[in-house]
């Protein structure tokens, strides 16, 4: 650490940003004040739309089409003792451009779209170095290699000439960090840099950022919605709500003595490994509803004209799970582990090459889900229903809520006319929406409300099994918790069994009775949720669990 640690490098006072519109302006943030200190990490938390990202962009004066209405952003040169006021500068001017990249660098959430796909990683880092430093190309290349080495990319001499698509998500984010650190900035702004990454990769990136911060002594402005990440890395915390700062403080104080009610809510809704299980386990009976035996499915690489097909991807490798009546079975794994493929096999969308998936119907008949005749039969999929991940894409924008929820009842010839209308109203109220909402179209609802509509559609046919494919991962913390509680209530009330596919361990621990952990198409471990989270047996599960951030700064384990 340098001697400058702890000195204030950026002072933001009374910052307000608004989007001009035809009917007056919309305020994005108002009266935001905070300090960034060298060698310290300040985390900005809040749910989507709270103005975190706008604040970060305002610091760099790149808020277009919005405008900075009021406030001061003072960038302090600690060694020279000079101050620059950034908010008054021309957003396209030379002065602010000299600050961007050189003194304040930024990394983004989506590493795929923030790197140019047509240039090599090296070209992009070298460009950043050449822009801000007075060096020749050969030196810049050496520095780029050093930067890649610093972010722990293997063989930086070779990796520098690769294209972004040859990098994995975590490597791309490392490359972005290398680019940002190329000019040794005083301030690094990280806008949800780990949100798109798997939990184990997230842990690596957080560790890397912390290490780099210590060696460079820079201030980090870290934006996230994940209280677990905040607890792991923050020194200071700024809590935002509807464009305003509601609480600022030391991380320990914010977590253990929160002053504002909203902070308390955020903390309550944050789910980490410490989360208590919902406490309603034990309703599961021994009756098995779905059992799979050695399901294997590989996607052959695409048949090309005049070319031999390659080996392909093994999406499922001898998967055997069983879902019992009344239980919630979690399928956990990182992206590409095959969990969604498993759901699609059960829903008849993919056919496995090997293995069986048996569903025992209400009448006690065993049906093989891998047989296309089962899909055409229809009976099975009246009892097995699906909830989708994307609350926007899963509702037809051209149908009213009544038509959407009533569709399964109508096409199966169960209800029509006034009876259908009454039933839809009943279903809506059951999921916490007013019956009068049925006249409206999906575009009028928020994400959480849409997911409730999706749930109403799923329970319309009085199903026994619900397959929920990442049903809550597109939602913010407190809304996610409400949807989970709704599903828990419906489970008891309607005697449902739920197959819950998730990547968020905290959610799984709270919500599921049993968990199957998947890795590279295989089920590596199965057990009760508590056992998997507290005493994982398989090495992969152990790695996965240990990478989960815990929303308590006193239990830091990712970055020591």
């Amino acid at each position: 650490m340098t001697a400058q640690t702890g000195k204030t490098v950026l002072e933001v006072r009374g910052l307000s940003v608004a989007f001009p519109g035809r009917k007056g302006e919309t305020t994005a943030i108002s009266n935001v004040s905070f300090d960034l200190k060298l060698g310290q990490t300040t985390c900005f938390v809040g749910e989507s739309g709270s103005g975190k990202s706008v604040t970060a962009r305002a610091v760099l004066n790149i808020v277009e089409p919005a405008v900075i209405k009021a406030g001061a952003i003072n960038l302090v040169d600690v060694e020279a003792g000079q101050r620059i006021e950034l908010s008054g500068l021309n957003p396209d001017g030379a002065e602010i451009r000299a600050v961007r990249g050189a003194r304040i660098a930024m990394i983004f959430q989506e590493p795929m779209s923030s790197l140019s796909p047509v240039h090599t990683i090296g070209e992009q880092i070298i460009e950043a170095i050449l822009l801000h430093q007075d060096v020749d190309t050969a030196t810049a290349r050496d520095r780029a290699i050093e930067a890649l080495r610093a972010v722990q990319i293997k063989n930086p001499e070779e990796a520098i000439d690769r294209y972004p698509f040859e990098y994995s998500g975590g490597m791309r984010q490392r490359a972005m960090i290398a680019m940002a650190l190329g000019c040794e900035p005083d301030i690094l702004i990280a806008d949800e840099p780990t949100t798109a990454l798997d939990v184990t990769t997230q842990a690596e990136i957080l560790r890397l950022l912390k290490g780099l911060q210590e060696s460079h002594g820079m201030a980090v402005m870290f934006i996230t919605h994940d209280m677990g990440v905040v607890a792991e890395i923050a020194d200071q915390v700024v809590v935002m709500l509807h464009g305003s700062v509601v609480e600022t403080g030391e991380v320990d104080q914010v977590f253990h003595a929160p002053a504002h009610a909203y902070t308390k809510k955020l903390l309550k809704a944050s789910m980490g490994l410490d989360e208590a299980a919902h406490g309603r386990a034990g309703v599961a009976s021994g009756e098995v509803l779905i059992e799979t035996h050695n399901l294997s499915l590989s996607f052959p690489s695409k048949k090309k004209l005049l070319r031999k097909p390659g080996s392909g991807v093994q999406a499922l490798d001898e998967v055997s799970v069983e879902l019992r009546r009344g239980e919630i079975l979690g399928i956990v794994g990182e992206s590409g582990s095959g969990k969604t493929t498993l759901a699609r096999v059960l829903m008849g969308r993919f056919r496995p090459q090997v293995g069986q998936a048996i569903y025992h119907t209400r009448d006690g008949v065993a049906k093989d889900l891998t047989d296309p005749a089962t899909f055409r039969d229809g009976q099975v999929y009246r009892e097995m229903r699906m909830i989708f991940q994307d609350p926007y894409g899963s509702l037809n924008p051209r149908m009213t809520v009544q038509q959407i929820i009533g569709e399964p009842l109508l096409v199966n010839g169960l209800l029509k006319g006034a009876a259908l209308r009454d039933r839809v109203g009943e279903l809506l109220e059951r999921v916490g929406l007013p019956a009068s909402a049925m006249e409206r179209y999906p575009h009028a609802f928020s994400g959480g409300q849409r997911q409730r509509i999706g749930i109403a559609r799923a329970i319309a046919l009085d199903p026994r099994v619900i397959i929920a494919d990442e049903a809550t991962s597109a939602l913010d913390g407190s809304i996610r918790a409400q949807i989970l509680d709704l599903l828990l209530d419906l489970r008891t009330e309607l005697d449902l069994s739920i197959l819950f596919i998730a990547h968020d361990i905290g959610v799984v621990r709270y919500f599921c009775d049993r968990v199957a952990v998947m890795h590279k198409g295989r089920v590596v471990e199965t057990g009760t949720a508590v056992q998997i989270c507290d005493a994982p047996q398989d090495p992969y599960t152990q790695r996965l669990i240990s990478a989960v951030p815990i929303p308590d700064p006193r239990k830091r384990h990712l970055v020591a």
Partner: protein
Amino acid sequence: MTLTTPANSPDARIGQVRDTPEVAVGEIDPRIDLTHGTESQWQLIRRRFSKHRLAVVSLWILSLFVFVAIFAGFVAPNDPGNVKARYTYAPPQALHFIDKTDEGWSFRPYVYGYTVEIEPEALRRTFVIDEDKKIYLTFFKRSWEYKLFGLIPTDIHLIGPERSRDPFYLFGADRLGRDMFSRLVYGTQISLSVGLVGVIMSLVLGVIIGGAAGYFGGWFDAVTQRAIEFLRSLPTIPLWMGLAAAMPSDWSPLQTYFAITLILSFLGWTELARVVRGRFLALNGEDYVAAARYDGCSHLRVIVRHMVPAFTSHIITAASLAVPAMILAETALSFLGLGLQAPVISWGVLLQEAQNIRTLATAPWLLLPGAAIVIAVLAMNFIGDGLRDAADPYAK
């Protein structure tokens, strides 16, 4: 509401976080505003379209064209085929509405008559507007007979000279002294209908072939895609010329008219088939289409109820952009003398008259059908643009 919290401790329930932007379990959100969100897709499109000013103006212009095309006989003051050798290349007359006489001002539309002068050296006849000869006009004038919608015989016209023998040439006269305005009006009828009928035929072909290719995929998709690529690689004008040349010369004008539209849609469907196929492919991946299948919908219901409504607006847009292309193609063919033949009147046929530079120098009003084409094509393109912008359900 039966959905209450079971007996376990409420503190264990993380969802019990109140007054967050979402409603808690078992409660109905009182903030849901029931005055919004009840607009259907078509209402939304209409509202957004109405904000696209250029498109709205274009829609009015196109409506005028369509009105003129439907009521061609009523709008046209003169019989478009009526030859009057006396008025060969008569220049356009300006329309006046306010009659200023010794008694004062009055609303009485009139045009000035012509005096014919013969230049002694060149023996060329020139028309001079004679301001002493006022030809008064009346509305709903009864003169030559025509059939409204091709069915109802009548002789009422929107406007005409009080005495039917008087010359009335708003857009001038052509080589045979026929009224350009009336001919343009009748040309509108043929040209617009060629465009519309051609697009409707391509639409039927395109939607069926493209839809089947997109929904079922596989070898059918591969074959149709290659066929479309082949058809689109053919140079159009020579192809049309070949097809037009293959038409028997003894066909009646009506038969040629249908043959020409058929030829035009023979290539036009490919574009639409691609649009439809692309939409089907994109929609096949949508969660709500998957949800419809899980709801137990048949293939037909998935297509008709869930997929087609999602792209009708795209189809309408593609079609409205295809109509002007059709019109231009017909014009090009007729201009080259390969398409429609006199006595059928279309904009292309009318422009054939304007092929000779010397006649153009003496009678530049023969180019007016060109102006009509430009206005109609631009209007339809703007409408297509406006529809495209309005059709995206999530566009801002």
